[in-house]
């Protein structure tokens, strides 16, 4: 369960990172788009202003042309009626200024064919008009004023002026139309700009919200996984404690069972051994009787009777005896084991280094006989535990190491220890004959032994060690390679806690 949640967490972390980068990229893209839109809009605006100015200039030029035309007309009329030269001068000045104004208008509207066409028609009207005027002016200049007035009256002058004005108006209208068109374009570009800006802004806000949510979820996931991790660490310790408690309970049960069984097996065994002894003394008597009978009355003694008394009976009794003795040893071993298990554990502070040194000293002769060395990786971590039990475990393991050294090479045994938090691991390493992989668990079973049976023993030592280790809330395991050596690893709580008191304390927590 925990493993899966960790895995899930790892995946989401990578996905989250990619998502955040994507969000940021999108946000930046939106900002760039907004910037480009602003630039484009400014350019549009500038062009539009220029166009508006242009329109006004064109309108101004048209207005000027109209004014000049009207002015020249008024001046001509004055000259024809009064023949005063001052009017003629005014007329000439206005007519001189008119072509330049028209030329500038042509320049300004050169990109617009419609205005060009309008302008051409305007020029036509002005030309027609000025030809008429020249006729009346010439007549007035010759002194024929009355004739000039008649010509003037006949020349549908006013109508010509009206046409001219309409043409100028058409040009203005054309410019106004263009202006309206440009205004519309300007409006739409402004709308596009605002739309772009709004979309970019919305995008930035969305990205910001998404990023914020993701980061928040990530933080929450992080907190959750941290909590899970902490819980896991807590439960791990609990699990270890629970497991050790289970082992201790199972161990206790087995020992109670062993005690009852061995105890009840003892009663019948007492009978078997007792009556075998009775049988033996009876056999001695019968043997003596056969001897006497042979001496005094040999005809009474059959071959079968003699064989039975002298060989069969003693042989049978001998086998019964050796078997019962073996059984007695085994029962005693179980009893010893169970008694050890029932013993009250008295935890006290132990100097493990000194203890191992004492054990090494007691085994010194054996170690020297075998040409071996025993190294203690001092100082070994101290313990608060039961002295007798720890002594028993250590001496059994060291004795075993000495006992099963390989004759092929000088033996070397190392005892070392290490503290991990609330627990201590001791290692008993040797370069002895080793244990085959099949036998790694078997060696801890009662009455089971591994390898050549060339050493005395009942197969009790390691069973005893394991039972004691469980009793002290510890575990023991072995790593070994046949022919290379063996390492026993003993893991014990640094401070022994009685599982029965620990169990009663637990529900209160």
């Amino acid at each position, binding site marked *: 369960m925990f493993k899966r949640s960790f895995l899930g967490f790892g995946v989401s972390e990578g996905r989250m990172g990619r998502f955040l980068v994507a969000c940021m990229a999108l946000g930046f893209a939106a900002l760039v788009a907004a910037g480009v839109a602003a630039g484009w809009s400014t350019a549009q605006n500038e062009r539009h202003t220029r166009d508006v100015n242009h329109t006004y200039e064109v309108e101004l030029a048209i207005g000027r042309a109209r004014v000049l035309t009207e002015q020249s007309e008024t001046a001509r009329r004055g000259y024809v009626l009064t023949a005063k030269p001052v009017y003629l001068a005014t007329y000439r000045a206005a007519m001189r200024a008119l072509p330049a104004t028209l030329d500038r208008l042509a320049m300004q509207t050169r990109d617009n064919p419609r205005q060009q066409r309008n302008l051409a028609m305007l020029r036509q009207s002005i030309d027609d008009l000025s030809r008429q005027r020249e006729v009346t002016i010439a007549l007035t200049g010759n002194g024929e004023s009355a004739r000039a007035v008649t010509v003037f009256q006949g020349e549908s002058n006013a109508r010509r002026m009206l046409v001219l004005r309409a043409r100028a108006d058409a040009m203005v209208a054309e410019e106004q139309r263009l202006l309206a068109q440009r205004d519309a374009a300007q409006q739409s570009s402004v709308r596009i700009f605002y739309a772009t800006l709004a979309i970019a802004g919305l995008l930035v806000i969305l990205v910001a919200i998404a990023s914020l949510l993701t980061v928040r979820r990530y933080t929450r996931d992080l907190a959750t996984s941290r909590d899970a991790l902490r819980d896991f660490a807590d439960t791990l310790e609990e699990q270890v404690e629970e497991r050790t408690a289970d082992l201790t309970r199972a161990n206790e049960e087995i020992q109670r069972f062993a005690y009852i069984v061995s105890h009840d097996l*003892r*009663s019948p*065994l*007492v*009978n078997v051994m*007792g009556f075998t*002894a009775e049988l033996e003394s009876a056999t001695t008597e019968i043997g003596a009787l056969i001897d006497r009978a042979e001496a005094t009355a040999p005809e009474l003694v059959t071959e079968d009777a003699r064989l039975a008394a002298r060989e069969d009976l003693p042989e049978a009794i001998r086998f019964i005896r050796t078997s019962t003795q073996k059984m007695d040893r085994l*029962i*005693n071993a179980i009893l010893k084991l169970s008694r050890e298990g029932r013993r009250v554990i008295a935890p006290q502070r132990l100097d493990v280094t000194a203890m191992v040194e004492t054990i090494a000293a007691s085994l010194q002769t054996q170690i020297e006989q075998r040409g071996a060395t025993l190294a203690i990786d001092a100082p070994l971590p101290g313990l608060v535990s039961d002295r007798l039990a720890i002594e028993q475990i250590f001496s059994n393991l060291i004795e075993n190491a000495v006992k099963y050294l390989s004759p092929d090479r000088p033996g070397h045994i190392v005892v070392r220890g290490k503290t991990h938090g609330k627990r201590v691991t001791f290692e008993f390493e040797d370069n002895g004959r080793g244990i085959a992989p099949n036998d790694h668990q078997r060696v801890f079973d009662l009455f089971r032994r591994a390898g050549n049976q060339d050493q005395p023993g009942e197969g009790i030592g390691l069973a005893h060690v394991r039972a004691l280790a469980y009793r002290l809330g510890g575990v023991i395991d072995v790593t070994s390679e046949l022919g290379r050596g063996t390492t026993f690893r003993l893991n014990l709580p640094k401070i022994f806690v009685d599982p029965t008191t620990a169990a009663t304390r637990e529900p209160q927590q």
Partner: protein
Amino acid sequence: MTDHKSVSIVMIEDDEGHARLIEKNIRRAGILNAITHFTDGTTALDYLFNSADGPQRNGPALVLLDLNLPDMSGTDILAKIKSADGPLRRTPVVVLTTTDDKVEIQRCYDLGCNVYITKPVNYESFATAIRQLGLFLSVIQVPDIEPQG
């Protein structure tokens, strides 16, 4: 109720084989007192307290008691015999059993057991122990039972 009355031995032992071996070895030690054998607690108690020829009405006795009985615990019998105002409270009780549990031994002595012997599994030791018990029985003084009422 005279001093000349011989002490009878009451053996409470559920294992017939053990009983037989104990009896044999007691006889071998030269003790010829009558031995009455019971294989369960109920009949043994009935004999001790109620029987016409039982110790309460009929002279001094010594009890050999096994703790592992089919119908009741040997310690219950011990407690009944040794109860403070019981008529048999001065009767010597030898607990002879396979139990060698320290707590159990202490409990027996607390209840007033006079001797506690663990049956050795090794027969030679067993025989020796019983013979020594026989020697011990031949020298101890057994108090009279106080007549009732």
